[in-house]
């Protein structure tokens, strides 16, 4: 740190940070010369706690690993256990899971869409976005019994069947959101100031993507069609008709475009799912969960979250508790390796948009 440099902490108490984390910056004038991510403010030792809980007790725990999008965790955990224990789940369960995952992705993306505007001080779409997301949370509440922590996708299937008339309600909510979206576009995408600020901002060198393990919308904004839903389809994604969305810009604007188009994709997928949803049983009976033992083995299951590839590395040893569950959140790479490099040379004013565009979610970095 030379004399003319200023050390500045963005976070943890900072309205511009994407969660309880902090980024230490060295500034020369307005330009960042060095960045370092500090995490650990939300470290709850999930992996340690899972090691001392029987499998069913970990099931309410995992959804708390990523707060805004808990279902990916539940699904991954359930799928990993099913793979290790050799449980087949009913077809309908797969479709309901897919529906839940897509709804969850949609609510996250809508919130994000407002959030990227909010990171530049435009608070109107933030208010709209979080407000409209609430309608999806209402759907979740009706389906699962809770707004945020659904605790719904359990090993063996899903916990409860769709309530009566749920499909229509979903479709109605989708119609409503679809009608609302052009207004969002007007104020965000077609806004001169937003375009001026985001176009060409924080260009990621293409070589970084594979080298660093960048996944999800960030990779897709760099032209790499990486999407776990397509690459190794899970649940019912292999029966859905969709294309991977890519953009070539490598900048924040492209990330915005990718996510904007993914909102449309999610709505389209939800319609498809509702259309194709089979009837039948939705839960296989598990062994007595209090004494459930899973034979020893290890696996890595992954799924596509809004932020990128979400993975669970699980090791069992034949006892009733997992030997090891390692959660790989996409934010770990995005938030530490990528952000530390990407922020160098940027203007201090652009930190918030970049962090939002990378969609860093601190709880999944430190677990």
């Amino acid at each position, binding site marked *: 740190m030379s004399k003319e440099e200023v050390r500045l902490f963005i976070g*943890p*108490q*900072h*309205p511009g940070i994407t*969660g*309880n984390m902090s980024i230490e910056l060295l500034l020369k004038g307005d330009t960042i010369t060095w960045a370092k991510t500090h995490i*650990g*403010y*939300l*470290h*709850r*030792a999930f992996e*340690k*706690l899972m090691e*001392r809980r029987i499998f069913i007790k970990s099931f*309410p*725990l995992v959804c*708390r690993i990523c*707060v*805004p999008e808990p279902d990916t965790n539940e699904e991954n955990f359930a799928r990993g256990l099913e793979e290790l224990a050799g449980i087949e789940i009913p077809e309908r369960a797969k479709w309901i899971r897919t529906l839940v995952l897509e709804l969850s992705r949609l609510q996250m993306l809508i*919130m994000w869409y407002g959030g990227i505007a909010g990171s530049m001080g435009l608070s109107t779409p*933030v*208010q*709209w976005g*979080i*407000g409209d*997301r*609430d309608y999806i*949370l209402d759907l979740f509440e009706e389906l699962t019994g809770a*707004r*945020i*922590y659904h605790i719904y996708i359990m090993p063996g299937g899903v916990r409860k069947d769709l309530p009566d008339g749920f499909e229509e309600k979903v479709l109605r909510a989708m119609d409503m959101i679809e009608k609302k979206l052009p207004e969002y576009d007007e104020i965000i995408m077609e806004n001169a100031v937003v375009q001026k600020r985001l176009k060409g901002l924080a260009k990621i060198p293409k070589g970084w993507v594979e080298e660093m393990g960048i996944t999800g919308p960030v990779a897709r904004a760099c032209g790499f069609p990486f999407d776990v839903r397509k690459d190794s389809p899970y649940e019912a994604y292999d029966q859905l008709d969709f294309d991977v969305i890519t953009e070539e810009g490598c900048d924040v604007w492209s990330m915005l475009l990718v996510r904007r188009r993914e909102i449309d994709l999610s709505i389209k997928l939800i319609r498809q799912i509702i259309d194709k949803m089979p009837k039948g049983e939705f839960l296989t009976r598990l062994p007595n969960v209090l004494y459930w033992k899973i034979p020893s083995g290890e696996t890595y299951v992954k799924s596509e979250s809004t932020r990128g590839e979400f993975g669970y590395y699980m090791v069992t040893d034949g006892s009733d508790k997992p030997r090891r569950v390692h959660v790989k959140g996409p934010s770990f790479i995005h938030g530490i390796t990528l952000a530390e490099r990407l922020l160098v040379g940027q203007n201090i004013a652009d930190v918030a948009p970049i962090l939002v565009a990378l969609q860093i979610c601190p*709880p999944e970095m430190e677990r």
Partner: protein
Amino acid sequence: MDKDKYFLNEKPGKLTYSGVFKRIDDWTRARSLWVVAYGTGCGAIEIRPTFTSRFDAERLGMRMAGTPRQADVIIISGYLTVKTLKRVIRVYEQMQSPKYVVALGACPINGGMYYDSYNAINKLDLYLPVDVWVTGCMPRPEAILAGFKRLQELIDSGRADGWKKYIENLDWYRENQKKIIKNWRMPNYNW
């Protein structure tokens, strides 16, 4: 400049109010709660809807304050890790009196899901004077708003005096805080 001069080390004297002023003060304090924008835990996810259009806490006179200096309320939204606790204490001590603490969720009450975690505290009232506890995991925005309503009632009737308790029992709180924060590199704040 000498570092000590930046921060007053002695405790402030007692404030005395005369009747009418106190009444107006309590009334306005209850209706103008600025919340420090610090999402300490997972409850932050429900604070967003609370403060945005669907539930709109601004109706009740609440708004987010970007800096602790200007804030009246700190929301402990769920569990607190040791690392965050240190920052929270710092934020809390930077806030100006009168100030209030609202604890959301089960975790600050008795550890919640993370009762056995080596990094999450179990009892918040050992470290900060909490005025209102709202349980739930997470508490819905409605519950959070009801909690604030309760806080407003308490302030309005002059009973929300956690900040006074904190000053009076500072040594006790400090002892507890220092017990788990091993490296106490914090200035002694004034109030």
